[in-house]
């Protein structure tokens, strides 16, 4: 799973997808996930990274992360 090329992320959470012309806004943890996805990652690694860093119940994080990743796929921002 990797962020598509031609997707630009600003520090403030503004995302521009040059492939489609669409733009998006993200909250800080959303930016962090997208930055992580600049390198190819599997979901388990991403989960472990966030779980170590944030105070959150595992099932909540898992649920939220799966939901967020499915949105990224739906918007066509990441490749499988």
């Amino acid at each position, binding site marked *: 799973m990797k962020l598509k090329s031609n997707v630009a992320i600003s520090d403030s959470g503004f995302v521009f997808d040059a492939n489609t012309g669409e733009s998006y806004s993200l909250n800080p943890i959303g930016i962090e996930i997208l930055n992580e996805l600049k390198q190819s990652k599997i979901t388990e690694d991403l989960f472990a990274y966030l779980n170590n860093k*944030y*105070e959150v119940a595992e099932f909540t994080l898992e649920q*939220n992360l799966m*939901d967020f990743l499915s949105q990224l796929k739906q*918007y066509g921002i990441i490749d499988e």
Partner: protein
Amino acid sequence: MSKLAYERPIINKINAGVPDKYGMQTQVGSIPYIDEIPVEKLLSEYGSPLYAVSEKIIRRKYREAHKAFSSRYPKVQFAWSYKTNYLDAICKVYHSEGSWAEVVSGFEYDKAILNGVEGHHIIFNGPDKSEEDLKKAVENKSLIHIDHFDELYMLLAIADSSKERPKVAIRINMDTGIHPQWDRFGFNYENGEAWNALNRILVSKKLDLVGLHTHIGTYIMSGAPYAVATSKLIDLALRVDEKFNHKIKYLDLGGGFASANTLKGAYLSGKDTCPSYADYADAITNTILNSELDPNNLPTLILETGRALVDEAGYILGTVLANKRLADGRRSMIIDIGINMLFTSFWYDHDMVPAKPKSQFTEDTSIYGPLCMNIDVIRSAIRFPSLEKGENVVIPRIGAYNMTQWLQFITYRPNIVLIDQEGKTHVIRKKETMDTFKAQEISPKYLG
């Protein structure tokens, strides 16, 4: 090393320059306390969902409204509209402030009597008054507002067989320049029916005509229609005086004042468009004071406003049950407050906020109630921060109609608490239990 505070990751597509149904507001506040009591504490003590009513706000709003009118006009009387919220505790707060009772059924009438309201301080409105109800009201010298000729003739018959001379007014409907024009209640002004009814009453000599009443509609967003209504009542009062030498003792302008809730489909928030009590008071009192009515013998001005007094005092508190994605990627949130407890969600886009402050990041969200019914939608489109299962939400300004028009449907109706002026909480209606229903239901014996 301690871990960082977590917030659910959010991504929102930007539709620059295109206004959408989610509106312009992007930040959502929070209501952590009701009268300085933490929402979480209320919910843990009394269960979720929960209605909470602030006595402090009831009294403040009542005094504001009363002052707006009494500072402009010498004789003002409020009558609490029972149908808006007829919980005994709430009614008693209004009565302790000096409010009479305005009732629209035998049930509400009996409630007012049990709440200690004197008979002659009860205004009996509405199209459904049985003979038994009317006899009781006549005996108690209550103010009977006649809705139709069938009621008028029933009252004349009761007067024949009674020692009392019933105290009556008629309800009058009219064109005040607003839409819809309510013409189903009372006698019409423009077609002469109201004048006919007044003549019938005064010629009979069996009824004591004490007042004239109108109630022009609901959620009226301007004072101007009230000025028109007042002038039409005054016209009838002057004609009655001229023809019969009979003085009308009071003009009852009914209710219909708006609250700060936002009607569905409204472009601007109700908070920005709701007139003040002073706007309504100006329109009504200026019309009376500038009229041909004798300044030394002015009629009492009666007001039956309900919604504009109690809406702000009521809150419903609830809990998030689940978050889901809909087919088109929108977020949906299920809470334990359904439309059966929030009847007004049929016509308002209720404000809704988290009980705890959240970050400024919000998502387009549809908020559903817990009922297994497709119509159970509290907000079809709202910008809302991310809340996890178990977190609490607050819907403010729900004091009017929800605790009377609510439906027992699929689940029990919850506790209602009153927060008194010292900040103490009192359960004023208990959560329903299976026994509530068992007490009412009867299965034929052959069904076992």
